[in-house]
C-alpha cells in the first residue's frame, strides 16, 4: 500500500473528512488505509467497476439474475454494489458525523420526476441503513430530498455545480430535518455536492466559445471560488449539511479547501497526485481566490449564475449547462449500460 502522507494529514489532523470516489474494492481498501471513511458512487462508477471486474463482483454475490432488462436491472445492480460497499464502511459510523456511508444515485434519466425519484429513494433506503441517497439538485430532486430527510434517510444533492444549488439543497435539508425532529427522530447525514471540476469544464467550453478575458489559469479556479463562497455562507447560516467537493481535476481542488469541515470526494487519480506532495501541509480554506481572477471569471454570465447566491432560481437548475452534460453522461455511460448488463 502507498502511504499517502497528504491524505493522512488531511483526514487525521484537520476537520476535513475524506471519502473515496470509486466503486473498485481494491482501490477502496487502499483509500481506507489512507483515512477514507465513506464512499461516493454514481451510475458511471458502478457500471465501470462491474464491467472491469465482473468475476470479483460475482464472487461477492452480485448478479443480475432475476431482473429484467431496463430500469429495474440498473437499480438492482446499483443497490447491490452500494450495499456491499456500505457494509464495508459501516463500522466507521460510530466515529461520528460524516463517517461510514456509501452513496447510491437515483435514475439520472428522470431528473424532473418527483414520483420516480421518491419511490426509488424509498427502495434505496431499505437496501442498507448507511446508504446515502444521491438525488439531483434540480427543483424536483430537492423536493424529494426534503421528504427523504424528513423520513430520516441520509441524502446527498448531486449534479450540483453552483452556489445557488448548494444553498437550496442546504435549505431543503434544514426543512426536512425540522420535520424529522418534529416527528421525534434525529435526521441522518446530509451532503450538498459541488462538482468543482465539472463547473470548470463547462465554463472552459463557454469561455472558448465567447472569447472573454478569462484564461485557462482563471478557469481552474471557478469551482474552487464557488465552493469557498458557499462554505462561508454555510458557516454564517449554520447549515447542518456538509459541503462535498467532487469531480476534482487536480490536487488544487483539494489543497485549496484543506481544513474545511467538508466531506471531500477524492478519486484514486487525485489521491495519487496528493501522495506526491511534500509537506509541511497547510490549511487553505480561508485563503481567498485572487480578486483579479475572480474579476475575469465574473465577466462570464455562466460563472455569475454559478457564483452568486441568487444567480439561479430552483427551476433554472435543470436547465444549467453543467447539469445537462453531467446528467447525460450519467445516463449514457452509467445507468443506460447498466440496464442491459449481464453479470
Amino acid at each position: 500500500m502507498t502511504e499517502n502522507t497528504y491524505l493522512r494529514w488531511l483526514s487525521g489532523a484537520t476537520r476535513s473528512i475524506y471519502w473515496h470516489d470509486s466503486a473498485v474494492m481494491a482501490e477502496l481498501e487502499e483509500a481506507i488505509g489512507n483515512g477514507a471513511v465513506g464512499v461516493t458512487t454514481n451510475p458511471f462508477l458502478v457500471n465501470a467497476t462491474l464491467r472491469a471486474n465482473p468475476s470479483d463482483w460475482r464472487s461477492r454475490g452480485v448478479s443480475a439474475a432475476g431482473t429484467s432488462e431496463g430500469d429495474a436491472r440498473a437499480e438492482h445492480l446499483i443497490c447491490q454494489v452500494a450495499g456491499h460497499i456500505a457494509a464495508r464502511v459501516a463500522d466507521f459510523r460510530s466515529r461520528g458525523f460524516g463517517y461510514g456511508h456509501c452513496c447510491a444515485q437515483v435514475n439520472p434519466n428522470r431528473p424532473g420526476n418527483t414520483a420516480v425519484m421518491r419511490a426509488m429513494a424509498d427502495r434505496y433506503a431499505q437496501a442498507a441503513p448507511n446508504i446515502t441517497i444521491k438525488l439531483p439538485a434540480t427543483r424536483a430532486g430537492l423536493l424529494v430530498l426534503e421528504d427523504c430527510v424528513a423520513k430520516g434517510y441520509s441524502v446527498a444533492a448531486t449534479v450540483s455545480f453552483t452556489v445557488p444549488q448548494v444553498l437550496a439543497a442546504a435549505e431543503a435539508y434544514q426543512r426536512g430535518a425540522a420535520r424529522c425532529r418534529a416527528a421525534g427522530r434525529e435526521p441522518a447525514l446530509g451532503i450538498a455536492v459541488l462538482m468543482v471540476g465539472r463547473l470548470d469544464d463547462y465554463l472552459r467550453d463557454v469561455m472558448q466559445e465567447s472569447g472573454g478575458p478569462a484564461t485557462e489559469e482563471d478557469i481552474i479556479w471557478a469551482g474552487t471560488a464557488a465552493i469557498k463562497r458557499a462554505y462561508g455562507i454555510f458557516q454564517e447560516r449554520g447549515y447542518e449539511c456538509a459541503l462535498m467537493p467532487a469531480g476534482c481535476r487536480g490536487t488544487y481542488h483539494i489543497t485549496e479547501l484543506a481544513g474545511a469541515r467538508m466531506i471531500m470526494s477524492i478519486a484514486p487519480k487525485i489521491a495519487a497526485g496528493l501522495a506526491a506532495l511534500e509537506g509541511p501541509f497547510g490549511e487553505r480554506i480561508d485563503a481567498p481566490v485572487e480578486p483579479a481572477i475572480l474579476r475575469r471569471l465574473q465577466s462570464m454570465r455562466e460563472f455569475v449564475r454559478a457564483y452568486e447566491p441568487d444567480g439561479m432560481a430552483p427551476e433554472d437548475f435543470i436547465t444549467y449547462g453543467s447539469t445537462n452534460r453531467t446528467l447525460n453522461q450519467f445516463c449514457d455511460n452509467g445507468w443506460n449500460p447498466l440496464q442491459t448488463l449481464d453479470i
Partner: protein
Amino acid sequence: MAKTYFDWLNEQTPTRWWHDSGSPDEILLARSRGALGVTTNPVLTYRTFQNEPDFWREQVQAISGDLDLEPRAEALLRLVAVYAASQFKDVFQASGGRQGLALGQLNPGRAGDAAGMLAQARRIHAWGDNIAIKLPATRSGVIVVEELAAEGIPVCATLNVSVAQALAVAEAYERGADRAEKAGIRPALCLVVQQVGRLDDYIRDVAHDMQAAVSENDVIHAGLAVAKRTYALFTEKGYRSVIMPAGLRGAYHLTEMAGAKVTFSITTRVQDMVLEADPPRENGIDKPLDPALVDRLCQIPEFVRAYEPDGLKTGEFITYGVIQKLLSQFTETGWAPLETYNSSKKSGRWI
C-alpha cells in the same frame, strides 16, 4: 407494387428524406424505400462498428495503430462517411448536388473552437464532393458555416433545437453563399437540422421539474412547433438553406411537416413506423398547430427560448440545456469511443 407513403412524398411533394444510420444493410434498405442521402455522425459510426464488425474489419485494421486520439476518430468516421456517400453518388450528380450526400461530423469537443473546426472541415471536405460538413449550431459553428459556404463546401448544421439558432445559421449561409457567388463559386447545399424529438425530451424534463400545466401531447409537439415556425420564417425570408427535421419519434413528426420543401433524416425504426401506419397522403405543413397548445407550451421559459426568433442570443447557443446534453452524447457515445476504438491508446478524458 403499391405506392408507399415515401413514394408519395418523393413523387407528389417537394419533401425529401435521408436515411439516418451508418449500417450498410439499413442504407441499402432505405435506398430501396426512397432515401436520397445518408445522415451519419460519430454515434452512428461507432454503432455500425459494434453491430456490423465484419463489414468494416479489414478497413479498420488498415488504419495505423500509431494515430493519436483525434486523428483516429477522424479516420474511422471517414470509413463510414465515404461508404455512405458512395451509395448515393448517382443521386448527387443527377440532383446537381442538392441530394445524395453523406455527412462528416466535426469533433464535438471543438464546438467553441472556430479555427479548429475550420481546419478539420477542410480535411473532411477532401474525403469527397458529396460529403457535407456537419457542425454544431454554436456561435463558433455559425462562423464556420459562413466560411465554408464562401468556399462552396456543403454544410449541415446540427445540434440545433431553436428558431434562433436556425436563423443564425441561415443568415451566415446567405452571407457565405453571396461571397461565393461574387468569387465565381457555385454555392453548395446548406442543411439546418431541427432536432425535434430531442427538444421534446428536454422540455418534458423541464416541464415535470417546474410542474407546468402541460400534457404529454403538448410536450411531443414542442419540436414540431419550432420546426414549423422556422420553416415559415425561412420561406418568408427566402433563405436558401434547407431544414432537416431529425430525431423523429413517430410518424406524426413526418406527416405534420409533409409537403414542406425540407429533407428529413429518418432512422430505420421510424421508417418502419411510417410504412406500418401508412398515413393518409395529406399536406401537413400548411396546417398550423393548435394555438392553445402552443400557448400552454409558452408557460415554459425554456420553450420560449427555443420558439422565439430572438429567444437565444448567439453566445447563449452553447449554454442551452439540450445543446450541452447533445454535445455530451456525441462525445460519450460517439467521438470518445472512436478515439480509442481498436487501439491500445488510452483516453485522458475526465469523468
